[in-house]
């Protein structure tokens, strides 16, 4: 018997406890509604878990499990294996923040991808540990102020670059990996829908501005999300079997400063000589990403012809290899 509430159709219902303007809540609502309630959702510890399952209440209208911080991809591997052995086709979706993806969850995620589990892993990337009060993660961009990368007499915020996780994921030569963000819903929709047609491990990194941690007006979540793309800081790309197969081109590049000025996490960079150096550095990083992905080249061609056909074979492995091969790749 179907026990879902017939009056609520969203997988993630209203009444949860996200902050106003929360990019992650917005992204999760979009992603889960696109996938629907006939899926099993596995959540890492983090904001999404906390604000949707507070104290014996749940905002989820789909089967949902949370275990610990680091293991969402492994739990999903087990869920998927159980469904497979029981002959069920239910999709399995992981939702995790950047901590649960880039840092503490990376090992389990790598294992899940390497073993070819038929799971979509969605990372809502808000570029720091927001749930615990805005501490720096390996996703935090260079020069950002967090509570554990504070600017001071000897520091201009975070010293290290944002980890290029999409390249690390794509280096597993898995069927599909893409980046998206809340400002571009039709792009996000197309990527989720594409991911759901592919068997095997899939990965989606959704940049999700956090008004609290990024220190921006909660009405600007979408604006800032769009500027992240238009500056070149967050390219929207698709990679299949390790090959770049698509990137959203820009008609013109917006200056990085326009993006930084809207956010308190970069405020310390303005008005000082040292800060100006870091702003130039961030601009250079954006320029490099634009060159790398050819975002301003109208005639850039992606390697679509080099992407092998994806075939499902064996007991759950994904393959570009002949059907008779016992190898996953």
């Amino acid at each position, binding site marked *: *018997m*179907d*026990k*879902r509430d017939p009056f609520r159709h969203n997988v993630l219902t209203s009444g949860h406890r996200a902050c106003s303007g929360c990019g992650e809540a917005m992204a999760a609502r979009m992603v889960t509604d696109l996938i629907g*309630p*006939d*899926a*099993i959702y*596995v*959540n890492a510890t983090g904001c999404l*878990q*906390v604000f949707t*399952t*507070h*104290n*014996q*209440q*749940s905002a*989820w*209208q*789909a*089967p*949902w*499990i*949370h*275990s*610990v911080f*680091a*293991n969402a991809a*492994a*739990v*999903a*591997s*087990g*869920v*998927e*294996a*159980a*469904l*497979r*052995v*029981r002959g069920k086709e*239910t999709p399995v979706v992981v939702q995790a923040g950047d901590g649960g993806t880039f840092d503490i969850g990376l*090992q*389990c995620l*790598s*294992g899940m991808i*390497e*073993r070819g589990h038929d799971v979509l892993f969605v990372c809502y990337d808000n570029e720091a540990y927001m749930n615990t009060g805005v501490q720096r993660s390996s996703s935090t961009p260079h020069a950002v102020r967090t509570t554990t990368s504070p600017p001071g007499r000897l520091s201009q915020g975070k010293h290290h670059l944002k980890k290029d996780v999409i390249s690390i994921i794509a280096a597993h030569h898995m069927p599909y990996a893409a980046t998206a963000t809340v400002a571009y819903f039709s792009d996000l929709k197309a990527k989720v829908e594409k991911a759901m047609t592919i068997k095997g491990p899939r990965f989606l990194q959704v940049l999700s501005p956090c008004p609290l941690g990024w220190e921006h007006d909660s009405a600007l979540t979408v604006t800032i999300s769009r500027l992240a793309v238009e500056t070149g800081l967050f390219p929207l790309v698709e990679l299949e079997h390790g090959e770049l197969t698509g990137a959203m081109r820009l008609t013109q590049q917006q200056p990085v400063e326009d993006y930084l000025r809207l956010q308190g996490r970069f405020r310390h960079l303005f008005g000082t000589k040292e800060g100006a150096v870091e702003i130039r550095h961030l601009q250079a990083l954006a320029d490099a990403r634009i060159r790398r992905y050819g975002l301003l080249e109208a005639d850039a061609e992606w390697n679509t012809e080099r992407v092998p056909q994806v075939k499902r074979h064996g*007991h*759950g492995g994904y393959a570009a290899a002949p059907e008779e091969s016992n190898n996953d790749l």
Partner: protein
Amino acid sequence: MKQLLEGSQAVAEAVRLCRPQVVAAYPITPQTHIIERLAKHVANGELEAEFINAESEFGAASIVLGAVAAGARVFTATASQGLLLMTEVLFNIAGLRLPVVMVCANRAVGAPINIFSDHQDSMTLRDAGWIQLYVESNQEAADSIIQAYRIAEACELPVMVCIDGFLLTHTFEPVVLPSQVEVDSYLPAFQFARSLDPARPMTLGGGSEPDNYQEYRVAQHDAMEKSQAVVEAFDADFEVQFGRACGGLVQGYRLEEAQTVLLGMGSLMGAVYDVVDRLRDQGQAVGTLRLRCFRPFPVQALVQHLSSVQRIIVLEKAISIGAGGIVATELRAALQQAGIMTPVESVIGGLGGRDLTPEVIEEIFKETASSGIDVINRFAPNHIINGEAHHG
């Protein structure tokens, strides 16, 4: 059918007979023979299961957590460092009340790194919320696996079957393996009422607050306490069907009129039985009690067996650094609560695979643990005696 099997092989065969649907593991000595044999069974089509090579023990525990929540019977095995790496997930499995069965091939914990057997790994996990059964033979290892699935699924509690590394896992003994039909009639097909299912969406693992967290923890504790009767009952059922039992919660040996009783766990008991026989032949009123079920701690059964004994010795292969013998401490508390003031001597030995030979065990029976013995044993090659006798 009686076969000569390594402990690992006996475990793997018993696991196969229980029809797990998802097996996940990460290699670690001395557990690897178990999962190697299961991997081969899956590769040969002799076990219809997904065999998943996890990226770590943390991953292996997480995979079986997810699989059991999605409605599959599961198995994993580990030891030592691997068990400690699983720790966070093992607490979580217990808190989610998921019926996972695992084997701990008992091994010392580093540093210094040591691959040989003692009970430090699983005893360190005593507060994790897992039923822990310590077996004394390969036969009991196999039989306890079959019982463990039935206990876990009836109580919605995870069960850890603890098997001494090398001493059992790599040692051949004659083992009677039941047939598939026999196991199927003892162990019902897997069913889990709270499995993840879109037709019946449930939230597993949501948040709790100070106004209800404690209730969850107490409910877990109550379920553990109640599982004592289940462990006994399913062992009795097993005996009816298979003609042999595993010892329930605690198992006595030559306790009739015994004035001195040594309490121990696991494979060392074989040597203890020999020593008890020898001392009995010499006219000494000695006996022994094997603690099979360490969690839940079977207070009532222990008190019942030890109420009229004059001298109690606990010989254990683990140490709570800075506190001493773990079982001895818990036994003292249990006896005192029951008004029994018999001193409990705490002897710790066999750490990191050090042999507990019959000679050593006989010495433990003969020498009262006193400050004198303590000094002697600082230099003794084979065991340490931890502190003085506890005089009520």
